[in-house]
């Protein structure tokens, strides 16, 4: 099974693991909001907060250098995105000047904000399992609607488990096609037809995977009233949620 999807949960007894998924979610949203609104002078403070959050989530447990390498690898999608943002704002073929140098700093600020959001999200996903978030979501829904047969969290769990299976199905379909000469034919039409066959195989594989997941749920006696993982909401959770929400609101107000 490929290890893909946003939940790069890592096991271990890290400080961030002791918080409730919902208090961490509030913190993630508030700090991401603050990051997107922050001006340059606030960025070092936010960077420190992001570093602390990542450390609390165990990102540097294998060692600072190795942890940073892993983070850099996971964040590599930011490079093309950042280059695109900078190019989009700085290069202006229809303006009076081809290069608007004054736009460079605001563009870099924008990229830095994105990096902050990534760091906070990474800390969240490293310290929260999909099962915990699923249990918290279902628990909240049951309390809000006063019904014990609601289970929206299960869809989240299934989605997180299903994404890697889809990637697997795609890889299997692609490798099977490559082994049978896919990509070796020239010309748009044959290539298009081969791509359609590949897509068809991928969709069929995904449907099969979805059906077997449904059967697995049935054989394991799935009931919407299932018992939820006990996740106590402590004073520390309340404090984290309150402080983060205040920071987010302050960022919005400024």
């Amino acid at each position: 099974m490929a290890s893909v999807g946003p939940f790069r949960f890592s096991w271990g007894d890290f400080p961030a693991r002791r918080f409730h998924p919902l208090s961490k979610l509030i913190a993630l949203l508030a700090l991401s909001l603050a990051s997107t609104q922050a001006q340059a002078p606030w960025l070092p403070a936010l960077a420190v907060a992001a570093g602390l959050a990542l450390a609390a989530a165990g990102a540097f447990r294998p060692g600072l250098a190795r942890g940073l390498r892993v983070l850099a690898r996971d964040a590599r999608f930011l490079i093309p995105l950042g280059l695109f943002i900078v190019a989009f704002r700085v290069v202006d073929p229809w303006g009076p000047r081809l290069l608007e140098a004054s736009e460079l700093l605001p563009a870099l600020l924008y990229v830095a904000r994105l990096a902050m959001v990534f760091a906070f999200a990474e800390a969240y996903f490293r310290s929260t399992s999909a099962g915990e978030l699923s249990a918290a979501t279902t628990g909240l829904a049951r309390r809000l609607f006063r019904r014990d047969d609601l289970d929206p969290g299960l869809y989240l769990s299934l989605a997180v488990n299903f994404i890697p299976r889809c990637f697997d199905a795609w890889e299997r379909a692609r490798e099977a096609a490559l082994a049978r000469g896919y990509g070796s034919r020239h010309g748009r039409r044959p290539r298009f037809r081969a791509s359609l066959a590949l897509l068809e195989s991928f969709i069929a594989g995904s449907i099969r995977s979805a059906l077997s997941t449904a059967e697995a749920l049935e054989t394991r006696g799935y009931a919407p009233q299932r018992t939820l993982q006990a996740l106590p909401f402590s004073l520390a959770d309340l404090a984290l949620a309150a402080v983060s929400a205040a920071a987010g609101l302050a960022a919005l107000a400024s």
Partner: protein
Amino acid sequence: MAEIARARGLVHRFPDGGLGLDGVDLHVDDGDFLVLAGRNGSGKTLLSRHLVGLSAASRGEVLCRGRPVSADPQAARRTIGYVFQESDAQIVGQTLLEDAAFGPANLGLPWAEVRSRAAEALSLVGLGGLEERRPDSLSGGERRRLAIAGVLAMRPDCVLLDEPFANLDLPAIRSVLAVITAAHADGRAVVVVTHELEKVLAHATRLAVMDSGRVVYDGAPGGLARELYEKLGLRDPFRSGASLEELTWLR
């Protein structure tokens, strides 16, 4: 011994008219270690699916503890724990503990009980101490043992395993076999669906062989005439001259 499950005159006709099962009669009792063998396409997996209510009969019926499975498939699935051949399909949790806890959580037990059952099941299959690991970090054999743990955590009366040794290397086969024999020693009935008789026959109390959707042999593990193995698409496990007890892969 009380009867856990019984297929009575079970017929399964596919939408294209082909017969998957052609009047199957088979029972599983408490304490049984039944090996259900047969060539590919003989109907073993289809029969297994009927035993847990995943397929609907065209004729005949399947009873679980004396009640039709079609009337209450959930009850049948609590009594008979089904381990899929594709263990990946059965994994729904993001950590080993979450996955093993999924079944008992569906029984509505308190979380402390759910957790303790899941931890105990993981320990039984040799995955104790790895509760917070991710299933995708496990080897194929470990994932199969995790799938078995997910079923054992529900404490069923019978564990039904579909091709539990498929695609596994020797150490993984041994570890899965050890888990299966331990589950049987623990008082559970076990049904192993396989065509690799030599790997498991030494531990069986009964052998049933299917061919073309029918049960053509149901009796003692060593009772099938040796000239019939090849005809039924199976490899004769006794061809080396070994006795039934000597066949075990656990040594």
